[in-house]
């Protein structure tokens, strides 16, 4: 393999991996705080992309404005989702909330099919993001460099919120023990609503990035990326924000490099990714960055 070819594969993997990472941080944040796997995450991602599509086509908003509106709209939707589907189940067994999350996911997909129709829609790509540039013989779009940048900024912001602000402190407390936190006078429902708002905003941001890279949106577009990002989050140690990014990058690199080095096995690319996942979990069940969980007695 020539250096030029490797560089091309490297950039391909970097784009895909950082997209997985970007989606995974929203997943992992909600899990880290509530111990809830929010299966509707991929569908919020889809809605975010659709909001931008309709914002620019139906309401003729300039693209940056449409992006901001879509992210805010998704955050609001996240709060609503928590209020309707998760809050009533706060004291129910964890499995009930999980089932509720799956229901929300199906509901959003079906709703999107009815409202937006199942037809794939083309996505507008701003010219400055997709004009080709060449680095060392490899061809890439500014978008390829933008995605890891956006991911880094969002991770930094998220870490700041969780570890250096008061609501963040409350989030950490909730992740340890909801009841005690409530007794200490924290408005638990508000903090959880905020968690969902941030998680959904992250999902929307990643959906918009995903749609820019793969400019075709449909009501089921969130299913596969959501699934892969969930794997990346588990891989990195679910609950760990850095772990989600690293997990996403590793998954992206495995997928691309499998095809790069073993083109004849390209049909098995997912199988390779999952075999590695199984191996990692067998050796380190909590994932790469996961903390050991002490079961409370």
């Amino acid at each position, binding site marked *: 393999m020539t250096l030029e070819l490797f560089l091309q594969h490297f950039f391909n993997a970097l784009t895909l991996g950082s997209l997985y990472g970007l989606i995974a941080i929203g997943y992992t944040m909600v899990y880290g705080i509530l111990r809830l796997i929010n299966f509707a995450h991929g569908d919020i991602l889809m809605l975010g992309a659709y909001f931008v599509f309709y914002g620019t086509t139906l309401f003729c908003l300039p693209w940056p404005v449409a992006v901001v509106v879509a992210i805010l709209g998704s955050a609001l939707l996240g709060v609503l989702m928590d209020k309707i589907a998760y809050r009533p189940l706060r004291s129910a067994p964890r499995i009930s909330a999980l089932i509720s999350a799956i229901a929300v996911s199906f509901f959003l997909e079906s709703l999107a099919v009815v409202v937006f129709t199942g037809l794939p829609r083309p996505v507008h790509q701003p010219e400055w993001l997709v004009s080709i540039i060449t680095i060392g013989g490899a061809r890439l779009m500014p978008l390829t460099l933008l995605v890891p940048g956006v991911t880094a900024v969002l991770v930094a912001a998220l870490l700041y919120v969780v570890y250096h602000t008061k609501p963040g402190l409350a989030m950490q407390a909730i992740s340890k023990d909801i009841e005690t936190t409530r007794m200490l006078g924290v408005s638990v429902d508000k903090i959880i609503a905020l968690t969902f708002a941030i998680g959904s905003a992250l999902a929307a941001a990643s959906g918009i990035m995903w749609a820019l890279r*793969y400019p075709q949106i449909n009501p089921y577009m969130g299913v596969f990326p959501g699934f892969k990002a969930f794997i990346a989050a588990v891989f990195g140690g679910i609950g760990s924000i850095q772990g989600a990014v690293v997990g996403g990058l590793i998954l992206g690199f495995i997928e691309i490099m499998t095809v790069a080095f073993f083109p004849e096995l*390209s049909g098995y690319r997912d199988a390779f990714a999952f075999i590695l996942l199984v191996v990692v979990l067998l050796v380190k069940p909590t994932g790469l960055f996961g903390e050991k969980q002490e079961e409370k007695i």
Partner: protein
Amino acid sequence: MKVSHALASLALAVAALGLAAPSALAAEPVKIGVYLPLTGQNAFGGQLELNGVKLAHQAHPTVLGRDVELVVVDNKSDKVEAANAVKRLIERDKVSVYIGTYGSSLAMAGGEVGEKAGVPGVGTSCTNPLVTQGKKYYFRACFIDPYQGAAAAAYAFKNLGMKKAAILMDVANDYSVGLCSFFKRSYKKLGGEIVADLKYNSGDQDFTAQLTEIINKKPDIVFMPAYFAEGAIIMKQARELGGTFTMMGADAMDNPDTLKIGGKAVEGFLHTTFPYDVAMPNMSEAAKAFTADWKATFPTQDPNVNSALGYVCYNLILDAITRAGSDDPAAITKALAETKDLPTPLGSLSINATHDAELPVGIIQYKDGKRQYIGEAIAE
């Protein structure tokens, strides 16, 4: 004065018909059943095919000196309804032969019933190989999916002179697997070289790794029989990565959204399809007659390939009944199987050993941002 003149000639015509009628009515009409999806998700295609059948019936309303009676049943785009529809046609209406249907899964359900009763059927647009597999009494007026793969290979190698091809196949999709394996087989037999053979899974959005590998092998043409949304994304990524090869797909790419999603990346893209298009150059006499007839009868709608397939089905059956000299189902079955070089709007049609139509395959190319019918290819 003119009006009364016209009325008088009309009266004369009616009288003439009345005189001619007794001889035609003396014999029982020949009954041809039609089961198509006239409601439900496939209604669009079903309606066009029904209009095609009706158009052909209007042009040739008699056979063997007897009237032809069409018995039309809606299969509602539903497998159970499709089986019931054929049962009704055979048991209640006692048809000698039936036409239908749009959709392979519907045809499989309906064909099973006809097979047990020993009544021949002719499918309109059901392209899955399984539809006629092992069936004695089921035929179709269309070609099967893999046949397009072979025709695409012939076109790429012979007409375009491209000696090196790469394949990008969806391993989780029968349609893609069938087309690709037939493309490879024919292309190699013709003397072409397959320089790369890459795979992906349905639902994948990122094809950069596969495409980078393909670009590295420098093929002249890439065969990628994907569905249109996927296909458009593949083309976009291929051009972004600097691929300059020609790309070719199959009829699943035949959708206006291919261009909307793919944009400039679709320029030059080729795909195979059925050999009829209202804007095709060098139309055959049969195609010209069909197009003119259609436009006179249905002025608000352009004919498409489905309307042509409905039309061809009826004519195929009429030709078989004429050759059989009887409307006995067994005799029609035998005559259908022996169909050879029947001139149709889709080109010269023969029925092969597996009861599928052997037709030329149409080629579409996107030029200057427009979809154009550029010619035909024959599978070897």
